[in-house]
């Protein structure tokens, strides 16, 4: 385990290792021979124009989409051969593009459902709200700025609060790899700042992969940026390096 937040050259023990990953939908290669390595404690941001395959990469990692070929290794697990809930159970959490929460349940219950206990039928039937569950829910709620709203029904939250709630639901699972698809979409400026701080705190001890369009936000959180274009990596490196790359400028401004 490396203590350095930026794991540039040390690709010896990546938490996530994607190799030669390809997926084709009826001949269209949405992701094409992708290689991507993410280190522990790293915040990686994936950017790229629309249709570059960013969300598809997350779908492939979390098992929502099956890979055509290639491998995704997470610690010692080959994720391409596992089902979605098994991938979650080995420590991968994923936030969706639009806030995906249970609108009819309270914030407390939303978080509680994500607590990694009683995940089988019988376990869920016999699940008890023990003090450690309540404590964990309260800690996470404080982390995501929703401490005051524990007993609010989730559909009454603002859009930004819903985004935080979904991040909180992932934190309940204590994932080693956290994947966030556009976490600040639709947020106000102050909410964006708070989210950046939140990501800074929660990336300690785990790896985070973020898809984002907001370049200011990307600058404030990214250790390393990967630019995807037409399912392939166009550039990779620090934000400054990527922004000055002529190929990247061409893709974003040109055509």
């Amino acid at each position, binding site marked *: 385990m490396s203590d350095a937040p930026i794991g540039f050259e040390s690709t010896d023990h990546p938490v996530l290792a994607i190799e030669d990953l390809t997926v084709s939908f009826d001949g269209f290669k949405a992701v094409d021979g992708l290689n991507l390595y993410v280190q522990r404690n790293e915040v990686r941001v994936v950017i790229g124009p629309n249709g570059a395959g960013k969300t598809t990469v997350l779908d492939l990692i979390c098992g929502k989409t099956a890979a055509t070929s290639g491998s995704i290794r997470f610690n010692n697990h080959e994720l391409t051969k596992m089902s979605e*809930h098994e991938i979650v159970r080995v420590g991968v959490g994923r936030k*969706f593009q639009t806030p*995906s929460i249970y609108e009819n349940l*309270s914030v407390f219950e939303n978080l509680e459902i994500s607590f*990694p206990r009683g*995940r*089988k*039928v019988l376990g869920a039937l016999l*699940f008890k709200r023990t003090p450690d569950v309540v404590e964990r829910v309260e800690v996470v709620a404080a982390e995501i700025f929703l401490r005051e709203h524990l007993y609010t*029904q989730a559909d009454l939250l603002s859009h930004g609060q819903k985004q935080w709630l979904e991040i909180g639901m992932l934190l309940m699972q204590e994932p080693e790899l956290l994947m966030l698809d556009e976490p600040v979409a639709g947020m106000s400026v102050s909410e964006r700042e708070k989210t950046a701080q939140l990501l800074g705190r929660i990336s300690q001890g785990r790896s985070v992969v973020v898809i984002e369009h907001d370049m200011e936000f990307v600058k404030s959180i990214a250790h390393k940026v990967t630019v995807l274009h037409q399912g392939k990596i166009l550039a990779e490196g620090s934000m400054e390096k990527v922004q000055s790359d002529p190929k990247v400028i061409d893709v974003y401004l040109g055509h």
Partner: protein
Amino acid sequence: MKAVYEKLLGGRSGFVGLLILAALLLVVFPLGLDIFRLGLVGKYLTYAFVAVGLVLCWGYGGILSLGQGVFFGLGGYCMAMFLKLEASDPISTKIQSTPGIPDFMDWNQITSLPAMWQPFHSFSFTVLAVLAVPTLLALVIGMAMFKRRVGDVYFSIVTQAIAAILSILIIGQQGLTGGVNGITDLKTLMGWDIRTDSARLILYFINAGLLIVCILFGRLILTSKLGRLLMAMRDKEERVRFSGYDVASFKVFVYCIAAMFSAIGGAMFTLQVGFMSPSFVGIVPSIEMVIYAAVGGRMSLLGAVYGTLLVNFGKTYFSESFPELWLFLMGGLFIVVVLYFPNGLAGLYETQGKRLLARLRGKKPAAETAVTADSQIAIDNINLEASK
């Protein structure tokens, strides 16, 4: 003890609701109705088992099964096979060319009891079969469908097809099943004549008691984390899956429970009415049972019972008075409920009834009414408070 009160009985409002239902079923009906009418209520209550199961799997789980008659029928047939064998002892069937087998088999030139019928000589096997056969069938259907992520309307269509297949199968295998007439002329249960008035009264109470047990079991499921997961799955299936749950196994579970409840209802139907026929298996009865749950309120276990009783009383009254109008009324009722009262009678009570009650008591509707817009939330809040 407090946990039992909150979890099983659903706190104060749930407990009072249950008490009222129990008083109605166990005191008011037996005292107020003659044995013929009470028998009718008993028959309706066997359908209520199906409706209660539908509240769990449709209302909370979002799984609309249009084939619950399959499980009702299988439970009923298992019980009917036992009773028929008892009614077909060699002495009372001595005029048949093969004495000792059910009469319809004799009419179909069958000369020995088929192997499938043999174990139904045993009552304990029969009870086991009533519970296990429909549940196992639901398990197989559920695994095949939910593991492949067949859902929504496709699932409903498949269940309807299964209902059609089973009723055709039963009608076609006349020598094994009694065909379109079903299994009739049932007399005794281990020597106890089930046709007498006293037997019908006892069976009525057993039936009502079992129904209340099923409702309590349903409450236990709904107030557990599993109940919240069902609602979560209904609204955001992907999110539940990506929170580390195998969504299919939860759907299979609640579908199996609904099947088992239906089967208990079917077996009690056979005992009280004295026959079982394919007319309770097919598409039409299965859809009628969904209407009971819809009218009563698909989110309310108690509402489902009232819905079943109301629709069936209506059916009996109108089909006696205006036989040709009844089907139109039933269809119209369903349309009105779906369009204007999506949560059925229970929903109407939650929004209007409570306000009315509060006004009658001369009180302003307290904070309670604010949260009871959705009864489940009320239950959850009580749980929260209890756990603090």
